[in-house]
Each structure stands twice: as C-alpha cells, then as structure tokens.
C-alpha cells in the first residue's frame, strides 16, 4: 500500500506558528495567567527601613 506523504505547506506552517505564538504572548499578559507561570521565588522586594535616618532628612542636626 502506498503511504501517503503529507506535505506541509511552508507558508501555512509559518502563518499558523506565528498566530499561535502571538496568541500565547497575549494570553500570558493576562495577570491571572502570568501569576501562575512566573516563579514566586524570583520576586525580590526592596523596602527601606522606616527607622533609619538618611543624611537628607531635614531637621536632624549634628550632635
């Protein structure tokens, strides 16, 4: 029996790949989806300590 070879039309393949990729890109921008996919471990929070006194603080003078 002859095996049917399916020929993929390169242009069609390219088009479908681009559309798929673009769609995934948009879907990933939805916050709900993004939060699931992004790793919580990499999140770093930068906060300064409110009890610390920078040099620029007004009203604080040299002893």
């Amino acid at each position, binding site marked *: 029996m002859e095996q049917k070879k399916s020929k993929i039309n*390169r242009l069609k*393949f*390219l*088009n479908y*790949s*681009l559309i*798929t*990729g*673009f*769609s*995934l*890109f948009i879907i*990933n*921008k939805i916050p709900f989806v*993004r939060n699931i*996919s*992004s790793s919580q471990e*990499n*999140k*770093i*929070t*930068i*906060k*300064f*300590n409110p*009890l*610390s*006194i*920078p*040099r*620029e*603080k*007004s009203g*604080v*003078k*040299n*002893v």
Partner: protein
Amino acid sequence: MSENFDNKSSINNPDPNYWRSFKELYNDRDLLEKKFNEFENGVTDDFDPNTNLSGLSRRKFLALLGASAAFAGVACSDYRDKGEIVAYNIKPEEVTIGKPNYYASTCTGCNSNCGILIKTREGRPIKVDGNPEHPINQGKICAKGQANILNLYNPERIKSPLRKNYNIFSETNWQYVDDNIINVLSNATDKEIAIISNKINSPTTLKLLDEFKTVYPTSKFYFYELFNDSVRNSAWNKCYGEGTFPLIKWDEAEVILALESDFLGVDENRIENVRLFTQMRDVDAKKFNRLYVAEAGLSLTGMNADYRLKIRPENQLEFVLGLLTELNKKGVIKSSFNFNVNLFEFVKKFNLDEKRIKYLLEDLSEKKGKSIIYAGESLSEEVHIAVNLLNELLGNTNLYRKDIRKENLSGISDITEFEGLVEKIKNNKVAAIIHLNCNPVYHLPEDIGYKEAITKVEDVFTLSETMNETCQFSKYVLPINHNFESWGDYKVRTGTISLSQPVIMPIYNTRQLEAILLTWLKKSSQAYSDNIYHDYLKLNWQDNIYPKFSQSLNFDKFWYSALHNGFITFQEDVKSNFAFKNDSIKFDNVSVSNNSFTLLLKESYSLGDGRFANNGWLQELPHPVSKITWDNYAAVSLNTAKQLGVKENDLIEVSIENRKLRIPVFIQPGNADNTIVIELGYGRENSGVIATGVGFNANKLLSKKSNYSPWIYTNVKVVKAPGKYILASTQEHHNFDIPREQDLHFKRDIVVEGTVTQYLSNPNFLKDEHHKEHESVYKPFEYTEVKWGMSIDLNKCLGCGDCVVACNVENNVPVVGKDQVLKSREMQWLRIDRYYSGSPDDPKVSTQPMLCQHCDLAPCENVCPVVATTHSPDGLNQMTYNRCVGTRYCSNNCPYKVRRFNFYNFRDHFRNGYQENPVFALLNNPEVTVRSRGVMEKCTFCIQRISEARSEAIREGRKVRGSDVKTACQEACPTNAIKFGDINNPNEEFYHYRNHQLGYYSLAELNIKPNVTYIAKLRNIRTEES
C-alpha cells in the same frame, strides 16, 4: 620561565632599567612576541567558521523561526519584565526619585569598623564610601569595604533557616528552629553551652551576651581572630603593666623602621595609617619621612620603602638587640642592659648592605624622639619587647598617642581555651555549640581537633550569612542579615562609638544575629519582632551612653543625630601608663641559625581571613605585589627557586611535622632566601560558586603550638612536587613599551623618579631633565569652559588597589574569571602598573595607576570606523556603546593599552550566568550603562558624576566647577593621591597639581596631550647616594 631568552641582559646596564617580571628582564622570546601582538593568540579560537557555521538554508531557517516564535511567546512572558512601578501615595520627604540618598553606617568587613556612607537609589544600596566626618577613617575605606556591597547581593546567601537531616540541608521555618534551640538551651543546666564568635567590638552586643549568660548560666564565650595583635598586646602588658599597644602618630615620624610589618597593607588600622604616613610624603609642604623596612617577603609596605633589608623573622630579635647594642656603644642611648650582639657581624652573617645599616643608625640617632620602630603582629613576643625597649630608650614614646587608646572589648581567647573546649566535648560535657557568624572549622589550627570534636556534639547551631565549612557540621544553620540590613554599635577607640543602621529591609528571610539571641533569651519564639534589636540598642543607648552627654538635647533628637552622623564622640579619660618595667627584659635564643626553610603565613590583601573569598571583585583584584589574581601561591626568591629546582607555576610541597600542603610557586623578586610566604584565606570548601576550589588552603599548616609565633614556622621542609598549576598574573598584560628596547620606561617618561635631595636643591630638576616641546600638525582646540583633568601623586600612591575596586563598583565592571584573565581579558578600567628596577634580589619598586588619559589628540578617536569614540567640548574622550561594532582598532591604537573589550557578555559567561542573577543585578549602578558583548569600554572620568554635578549647577543657576566632581577612584584613594578638576581654572586646587614642578605626562613625546598628570615619585635616600 622559557629557556629561549636573548643572551643580551640588561642587568649590567647602569641606567635605571624598569622591568615587570623576570621574563621581561631576561628578554624572554615568548614575551617579546606577545608584546608585538595587540591581543593574545587565540582571540578568535572560540569561533571556527569551518565547523561552527550552520548548514541550515535560509528557507529552512525562516520556517523554523516561525515555530520557535510560538515557544518564544511562552518563554518571553517574563523577559525584561521587572515588575510594576507604583507611584508613591505619600512620598517620604527626603526621597527624590532619581537622586540618591545617603545613610551613615559602619563597615564590619574587619575589626577596624570604619565609618561609611552608603549611597542608595530607589531603596537599594549601590555604593559604599567612607564617612568624611568619621574621626578615624575620615572618608576612606579599603577595597574590602568597597566590595562588601557585593556580599549583600550575593545570590548564594542563605535565604531561610536550614535543618540538616542525613547530611542533607532542607529549608524550615524560624519558629521550628527557635523552639527547638530554646528547648536545648533550657535543658543544658549541667553541661556547657559553648558560644564561639569573632572578636566583638559592640558594647550593646556584649551587654546582650552578659544577659544571655544570666539566663543560661552554663554559657561560655570563646572569641578568636585568625590574625590578631594579641602577641603585641601581651608584650606591651609585660613592658608597661597594663593596657593595649598604643596608636602611633605616623604623621610626626621622620624615620620609620618597620620589622616584618605591613602597616600600610594589612594592619587593622590601615586606613588611618596610610593617611597619616603620606602626610609625611608631601612634595608641597616639603615634608618627607624615611622608611626602612626589614622583612623576609616583599610586602606593600616594603614596596614603598626608601631602604629595604631582607631579614628572616627568626633573626629579627638579634637584629633589634644588635641595634640596641650599637646605639648604646655610640652613646645615643643609655641602657643598663648589655646584650652583647655585634650588629656588623650580624650584617656580614646575613649578607646585608652595611651602608644601609649605617644610614639607619645615623638616622635613628639624629631623629631621637621623632622616629618609630614598629614590629609586625606576626613576630614573637620577645621581638616586641625588644622593640618597646628600643623605642623607650630613643624617646620615641613621644609618638605614642596618649589621648586615645584602642579598645579591646571582648578580647581574644587563648588557644588553650579552645583546647579545653575540645577536651570537654570529648568528655561529653558540652550540650550545645553556637557559632556566631564565624568559621572555626576553617580558621582554627587542625591539630586542636575542633573539626573532629564537634561531630560528637549533636546540637551545633551556626548563624551565618552564607554556607561555609562550619555550617556543614551544624544541625541548624540560621541565616543572618548582612551588615547593611543590621543595627549595631561599635567601639574600637576610646571616645568614639560608631553606629550602623539598616539601609534596606532584609532581602531574604533572614534575621539580625542579635535579634536571634534576644529571642532565645526571652525563651519564646513568639518574642521575636523585626525591631527587637533596634529597641534593645536604643534602650541601651538611652540608659548607658546618652547620660554621658549634656542633656540639652532630648534623647530622641540625640538618637536621630547619632544615626544621621553615624557616630558620636565624647571625652573619655585614658589611663596611659608609660613606665617601662625592666624586669620584662629577658631573652632566650637570641642568635638563631636556621638552615632549613621558614614559613610566613600572611593575611590576604583582598580576602582578609577568607571571609571575602566568595567576592568576585576581590578575587580578581590583582595582588599589589605579585599582580596575581584568583589564587594564592608560595612566594620564593629566585635563589630559593633555583635551589629547589622549580620554575614559576611548578608545585612544591611544604611540610611541618605531619602537616603538608602542595602549592604552586611564584618567584618574587626581593624575597629573602629560604623563606616561603603564603597568604591565608583561600582553598575554601562549600563556600559558594566563586570561593570553592579557588587557591590552596594553607590553614592546614597552622598549629596550636609553634616554635616561633602562630603565623611563622621555622624548620619547615620544602620539596618540589610533581605537576604544575598555572597562576593568572596580570603583570605582563597591557604592555606599552617597545619590545627589545631596554630601559624604555625611563626614556619614554612612563616612570619618572627623582630623589628628595634633587628636589630640595632644585625644585625644577624634572623640567630641566625631561622638558620637551613638541609641535603638532593638528590645530589645537580651544577649551573655553571647564576642561576635565586628573593628577596622580606617585609619592602618595602606595599601589594598594582600593581605587580599582571603587571603579568596579561605580561603573558596573564585570568579573571575568581566571580563564579570561589568563587571556588578558580582565575588564578593570583602572590598573596599577608595578615596575621593578635594579637587581632581582634587591629591587626598587615603582607603581603607577594607569587609566584612560583622555588625550586631546587621542589616537583612538581617529581610527574608529563608526565614530563610536569622540571627544567632548569639556575634554573627555567619550565612548558611545551602541555605535561600537567591535573592530578593536581603537584599542590597537591606544598607546597606554587602557581600553577593554567585551569579548563575551561576561555577566552571562562568568560562572554560568552568576552575574545575570536578578539579585546580583540589583548591585548595578543605574547611572552607568551595563555593557554587552562586542563593545569597547574604558574609563570615562565618571561621566555620570560630571553630569550630575552639571545638572546641580544648572539648578543653582551657576556654572559647574571642577571641585564639584569627585571621581570614584579619587573618593576611594585613602592617601588622596588622586586629584580631579578643571584644568582651566587657576583658582582651583587641582590647577596647582596640573602645573606642578614635578608633574609629567606618560609617553609625552607622542604628543597626544594626555590629561592625566603624574607627580614624579621622590625617593628619600641619603644625599651621598642621590
């Protein structure tokens, strides 16, 4: 060294002949060939067009591109997404977006506890510099202090408490560990709780430990430091009955004799020492001290000596007693002691230069009361006692500071206490061991048996920022805050207490060390709060420190002011008893003959005792003497190398009794024969991606009992071992002399030197000898406004390298790794060139910081095909990174070889993207572009600081001034050798240095008009030698 060097040798050339390595001195052919080539062989080796080009056709490529776009869409969801920016609802008044905030704090990189100012941007620290108002360091910190910021953003910090089960660490939570530990401590009523720590300088922490002992009465504290001045202090106590060794007034010492003392390099008080010392190296004030150094291994202090003597440590006692005897004979001192040591026989026995000894004797005689003899902390107690006596008899006690003394709050435990601890462990008398941010398994001598002993204790708890050797033996490892996340106070001197405050909330789930102890003290894991130690510290200050001040300010204002300044000063009476006790004088074994080797174990210039081993900037900082990066080595003299039959990079085996170490050899000019010098702090295990496996662990050679001192061993056996280990040295990189031309550095004004005598008799002697007028085919450009320039005073530059690390931090310079350094690809914008002159056995050393000279007629600008490098109207040679295509023609044309090419994206290339880690990226200075692969970079004269100053000037409605800008290297230099400013403004301080009598330009004859002026080094040698 290769065998194929030229027969011509420059050793007999009477003119000063500057050389950087033995290969250069002996005209090694490989090196000469290397000098011809701009770049190392193999620059394009990584890319082979025959095998690496893909056979993929364009059509196939486009098809696959479409498919991969689908996957890229998923992967790209986080790419470049740094999160959200949310505007302030209520902005703190002191915060202006885009402008930095500065916090005063204290560095804990070593026991100097220098005052620092931490620069923060958008809440994260990015740069550390000295606090200009701090009385001790006065605005300067060392390379370790500068690089400490990298430790904060170390991706390998422990992020959460760890519990060990079957040799595997797993994360747990604080409540679990606190409850368990409190349970163990509470039940330890009849067994000891051993608490081990480094020396503590904090009065509040010590108060906390006292309270801890009250709650847990079986607690016993052990303090240690790998390098300490316990021997010096012990000798002082024997001589004077009490107290600690005083601080020295280096700025008043006209003659200094340093005995195996690197007081300019690694002394605890180094920053203050170098500032005071270089005040007596002032060409304008015409004040010059004379430095004699007697040492076995060439050190940074030895490099800056006017006269150097090679004396092995075991012979130092005989040398000092010889000086005493001779000065007594001459009537210079009056001593009832008769040591009967013939100094000139000593000189003959050890082949010393008799002239130098005569000069030394004459100088000590003439400058009685204005000189100082200073013994290194590694020498024996007897040497220190002899030195104290000599200083006493010469009246040099004038130079001891009597108004301020060093504090030694916790002290250091004797080694016998650690032996006692090990005995107790073996006898099952220890319930628990707590390590407070220390690493005794790595630091303590192996023959104490501590490492074996603690395996017998079930409850070992280690509080540490990162994993280390000691953590591996611990049941729980508790992560602590970095210094920049912590509160604290420090008292290292009478009359001054420094404060540290957190500039950022803890990045990970870590706690402050003292807060952890307070929680255990209160016997409840629920007692912890984020501010628990802040409240304790503040209360202690209110009760014990504030009352010493006048009560005109209420406490809160006092506290805020103290935090704002970073320190407080107050009057504190100092008992200084300087009555010498003659019964301390008793010396055994004065004359020591040692036919075998002597081993000196020294502190690393960049890693300290090893605590900075996981810091890439410090590992890559070239050693100030040998210029080696990334490893330690055994430094030996040329004669010793010949005797052992070894060449550079060969391995030797150093053994003392049953302790052995194999380590590569480096042939160090100027070392004493039969002496091995090795730095500690290397060979770390389980200590991070950068530290682990780098260098050789010479701590193995330490012993609880030494026949000389804890860091010096005699009767050492050394033999050649099979194998080689390549050391990465930068000393032959970036040559800018012509091959086969001897003494080019002298002829071409790369290194220009004179003597103090020449300068005092004719201040313009340099201009007379070196003045050259050059014509140019180019029409000169008129710089009518500010024109930026720099001057570097080579009399004050000691070659320490602090400026190099400061530049790395400020300008986001990447670490490249040892393999790339071997290919001359280190990326440091500023390098310290070190030249020897004279013979290899007794060289003189000259150092010269080399950076982009910002030449007016820069040869790099003409050859760039894409105009990526241009010249600004204010005199800067600019670099436009996004125009650069990487031809490297500019680097080829640069005569100073100061341009650096990014052969890789080193952030990605080094250690598999270690520097691409999101936490590590927080370190970057947002004001400076982060360069990628294929782009040339170089010193920019800190253009970001110039731009900021210009913006500030515009806001104030005035023109920018030269004095408004301080470059990173200038700010960091502890001796103020670097000056920066406006060449065109005669009213500025910088103008004087630009037009100095001793000023010269490197490679002036090329007529490219560099804007960096070097102030020629003057050696303070005797007139008859001048």
